């Protein structure tokens, strides 16, 4: 591991970094082969952005409700989009546990209670990914800065770590394997199906000697074999289809600062959606987000501000930066003509990092062609509160899924119509 002290802190490099932001080409220049033609039904897309430490409530939530809400310190950064998003007050999962609960942001279920649920602690993006299936090369793309915030979970309760190296993401999206490795991969896939058959048979030879709970474990194994088989079919389908041509220069492998990586990863996600490489994307902002280049103390340290004014000011610098980057992401989605077909969620499983509270989470949704409501204050009193999972359920329905329940949802999201 590299010590953080080996990282160069170089002002000039930093300033150059800010200039790195990609100029995305206009929609048309990508050519008809890369994007769904406008005459076809336009596909819908989901994006979830989550940060580990959330936002200081005092700087995030607007004071008044409605479309004419007075922008808070943090939301001021995206005020130009004010008619295109809705920010909610008093939404959460009714869970607690501080840092150890943040991973439940997109599932509403903590890892340790997941065994009691048929779909474990599957997150909303992965539910959408399953539905999206092999329509795109990738069912979903989970990106984020190193460390992430553990918010994406599969049906079997396995965490999907984010891709944090922009070069890897670029390769996944645009770089075709050379002929030799393509051939090797084809061979591998060809053999793999017979290997899977052999594994299934091997597992069955064990079956007879096992008790019930062992057989459950064996079933899990066989299910895994089936999952790989399904993915194998997908891989086969996509192996021979060339990847889209990249509209930007190749993103190379190099040391980057977080403030360089973040805009780059956001831009790559826009390209992923624009080229229809995926329809479900997420972006994770870790507690280890490096803040030295913003000339403030460590992010996690600042989140424990002790209400001290100078520390709160520094925290605001970080949070404003994060929100500004999110604003740029929305700009890009608009430029790429994707915004109205993309429902973007931004928020955190942390309500107040200072007190380690997971109550009253910061959540906003943007785009999706919805009739946005500005600041929507949900019921605050116990017994009347609306589970955040209801919003997740409605976003799945908006995506086209025919489902009536997600995790702990009690119904669709009543305060706002997402249809």
């Amino acid at each position, binding site marked *: 591991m590299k*010590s953080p*002290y*080996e990282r*160069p*802190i*170089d002002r000039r490099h930093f300033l150059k970094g800010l200039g790195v932001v990609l100029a995305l080409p206009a929609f048309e220049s990508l050519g008809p082969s890369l994007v769904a033609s406008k005459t076809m039904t336009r596909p819908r897309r989901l994006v979830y952005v989550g940060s580990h430490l959330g936002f200081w409530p005092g700087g995030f939530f607007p004071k008044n409700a409605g479309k004419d809400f007075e922008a808070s310190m943090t939301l001021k950064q995206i005020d130009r989009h004010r008619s295109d998003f809705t920010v909610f007050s008093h939404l959460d999962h009714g*869970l*607690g546990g501080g840092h150890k609960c943040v991973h439940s942001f997109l599932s509403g279920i903590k890892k*340790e*209670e997941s*065994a*009691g649920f048929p779909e474990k602690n599957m997150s909303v993006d992965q539910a959408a990914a399953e539905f999206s299936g092999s329509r795109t090369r990738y069912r979903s793309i989970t990106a984020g800065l190193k460390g992430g915030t553990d918010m994406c979970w*599969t049906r*079997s*309760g*396995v*965490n*999907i*770590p984010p891709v944090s190296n922009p070069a890897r993401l670029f390769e996944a999206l645009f770089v075709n394997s050379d002929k030799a490795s393509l051939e090797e991969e084809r061979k591998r896939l060809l*053999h*793999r199906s017979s*290997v899977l*058959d*052999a*594994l*299934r048979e*091997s*597992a069955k*030879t*064990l079956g007879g*000697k096992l*008790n*019930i*709970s*062992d057989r*459950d*474990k064996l079933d*899990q*194994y066989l299910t*895994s074999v*089936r*999952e*790989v088989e399904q*993915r194998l079919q997908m891989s086969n389908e996509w192996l021979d289809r060339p990847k889209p041509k990249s509209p930007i220069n190749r993103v190379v*492998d*190099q040391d980057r600062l977080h403030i360089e990586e973040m805009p780059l990863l956001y831009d790559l996600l826009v390209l992923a959606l624009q080229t229809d490489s995926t329809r479900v994307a997420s972006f994770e902002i870790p507690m280890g987000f490096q803040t030295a280049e913003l000339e403030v*103390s*460590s992010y*996690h*340290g600042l*989140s*424990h501000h*002790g*209400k*001290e004014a100078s520390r709160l000011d520094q925290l605001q610098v970080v949070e404003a930066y994060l929100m500004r980057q999110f604003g740029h992401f929305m700009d890009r989605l608009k430029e790429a003509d994707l915004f109205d077909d993309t429902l973007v969620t931004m928020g955190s499983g942390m309500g107040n990092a*200072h*007190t380690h*509270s997971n109550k009253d989470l910061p959540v906003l949704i943007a785009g999706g062609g919805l009739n946005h409501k500005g600041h929507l204050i949900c019921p605050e009193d*116990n*017994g009347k509160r609306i589970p955040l999972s209801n919003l997740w359920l409605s976003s799945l329905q908006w995506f086209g899924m025919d489902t009536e329940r997600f995790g702990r949802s009690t119904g669709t999201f009543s305060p706002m119509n997402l249809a």
Partner: protein
Amino acid sequence: MVMNSTLKLGAISFSIFVFGVLEISICAMPQNEFLQQYCIDCHGQEKQKGDRRFDGLGKSDLEISDLEAWQEILDMLNLGDMPPEDEKQPTVAERAAMIESTTKLISTELEKLSDSGGHSVLRRINSWEYQHTIGDLLGLNVSAWNPAADFPKEVVKNGFDNVGAELVTSGMLLEHYFAAAEKAVLRATQFREAPKRDYYAQRTPFYFEGKVNQDLPKLFQVDRFRFTPDTPYTDMYGRHYRGGHIGFEPLARGGVPYSGMYRVRVKAAAVDRWHPYGNVIDDFRNGDPLVLELMAVDRKGSVESTGNVSMERSLAKVELTSEEPEWFEWEVYFDEGFEPEIRFRNGTLATKRLTRLLHQKAGHHEEIKPFVDMKSGLEKFHGILRGYKGPKLRVWEIQVEGPLEEQWPPKGHQLFYGDFKPDQLNGKNAIERLRIFAENVFRRPLQADELEPIESLVLNKIEEGLEPIEALQLGFQTILCSPGFIYLAEGDGPLDSFALASRLSYFLWSSMPDKELINIASKGSLSDSQILRNQVARMLADPKSDRFVSNFIGRWFEMDNIGEMPVSEDFRSYHRDSIETAMQGETEAFFRHVMEENLRPGELLSADYSFINRELALHYGIAGIEGNHLRKVAMNGMPRGGLLGQSLLLTASANGVDTSPVNRGIYVLENLLGYSPPPPPPDVPAIESDIRGAETIREQLAKHREVETCADCHRKIDPLGFALENFDPTGRWRTHYENKSMIDASGELPAGERFSDPSEFRSLMIQREAEFTRCLIEKLLAYAIGRELDLRDRAVIDGIYENLETERGGLRDMIQAIVLSDSFQNN
């Protein structure tokens, strides 16, 4: 949350040990009766206020939705929101009893709904065990190449990541198994001729100009912070690669040709450890030894910036104090393609920053003066560096020799192919090799026909025209992904001797049994308790038992916490001085010492010594310790010594930024005293620390404890945390908080004993030896058998404890007793 299942064990059976406070559950009123009396009127058949109906909750087979309802009831009771004020109220005792029993009910029922019904589950080997099994099976160095590096994170239950019932197998994992198996087979296969030992050397210069070596990465090229010296040595100035790293030209074009052990020698000296620049050059501690670090790096042929190290591994560190050159020598492992690089580990931040600070703030020094007003450029920076009178790591020469004598072909290759060459393989001998391999991989004799599916796979592939060698390799890969490998099948009831050998080996080695253990198992002699005892002693004496020590310590002390909430960069010396590595080493060496000497487990609390190196000594404020190696140091009269004064525990119980008496208190209760306090009721507002000075954390917590629902637990929790407040989030001693207010580490345990500082607290904890010893038995047993303990293990724990007391036994006796126990020998 509700499913904290040590709670079950803790609260019912062991709570009586906690500080001697007797707590008998006072379940005066069954749950149903409580519901009937206080809830059903509004939430029953007649009325369903708030759409809630609870009259059906009394049944025995509860579903998840029923449990959700129970949870809601529990929340309401905890909050005191229900029954409403104008309705009949339960007494405080009734409410408390209902809360307790409902918490338990939910926890038990949820467990029933989860995967495991009984004890027996196929326990999948976890990532850590997979890594070491592959290493031992194929003779691969898995610290250099970890086959499980990208595996999905394992589920952690009560601190442990080897709980069979919790270990998920998923399609994602299986795909990782495929990739890892393919690489493992590739790495272990060595049909090449035995490598000849080669010798490489490079004298200064290490940086080049002009056309020479232009194909090399920037690290080798002269720039502002690297120049070709006219001396017979080259100096390193900073910690960062520019001017602080030196590469090795003879191996810079693709690294070493063979994986293996290499001898590396470096001729170097430490110059100007005392410098005249005061605090201008930041965090370098005047007079410190200079630390030289040897790395193995893989540049994948890149010539970008740093040479884009795509992978790196620290091989060795040494502290230099002599101004005269000395030779340093190591025997270290290099993976094929890796090359050596040496670094100035504790150099000041970066040479670039150093030169800037020098000409900005030390311009009045004679050696810097001429360059202050000079135009930026090579001349200026080289001039500053040549004149610089601060710490320099001076290097004359680097030599590399290897690979050193080793078995050829390597162990894994032998196991795969015996003496066969690829063109000698055919269907028949391929099947033979397959069986030999499978028997090793499955850690037991093959059962009739079980390999048949994989044998057919290989034969079919050969028939389809695949080269026999490729078909065989496909077979090996398949075996490495099959259930026989990735699961420990422990069956029902008493373990058979092979299952016992595996359980033992995964306990003490985190890996498969070796030949000797398998031989004993096949003779059926493992049931002999003396033989088993001897095996435990033999295995603990083997270096492979380091895996047990480090993994168990990591699990026991919840090292994950540090990974999830890393120590903030604001703690500069912690990062500069590699405290994290040193503190893990400290606790591991300490545990190993108590185990090897077979000392009483209480020694872990009461020892008046520890194992530290120079940097950890400085962290602890102890003078006079030189050198990077850990050694036993007396600590009597200090607030150190024993686990409670060790940085590992103190860092893992903080959050990388600040300490919380509540978190530390719970941590000590759970990990040293074996008691898990119930989770706080929801919606109790967390303490909002306010460092503007109005109120101390102690005053805030005192308020907390005035609340009835909080008081009972916090009386047990808080004092343990306050007692450790003199230790900052990285375990350094402090007397004041950041806002200058004085730390008060006094307190009173629930049983009434008072203490005024950490030392007095430590004495009181030493008196809790009994609880501590039981706690350690539980942790070790759970780790050893890979499942959660339940009430059925209670008698086993009692037995081990009582025996240990009667015999005045030590830590090694404890481990042996665990292996001989019913819980270990049965499934």
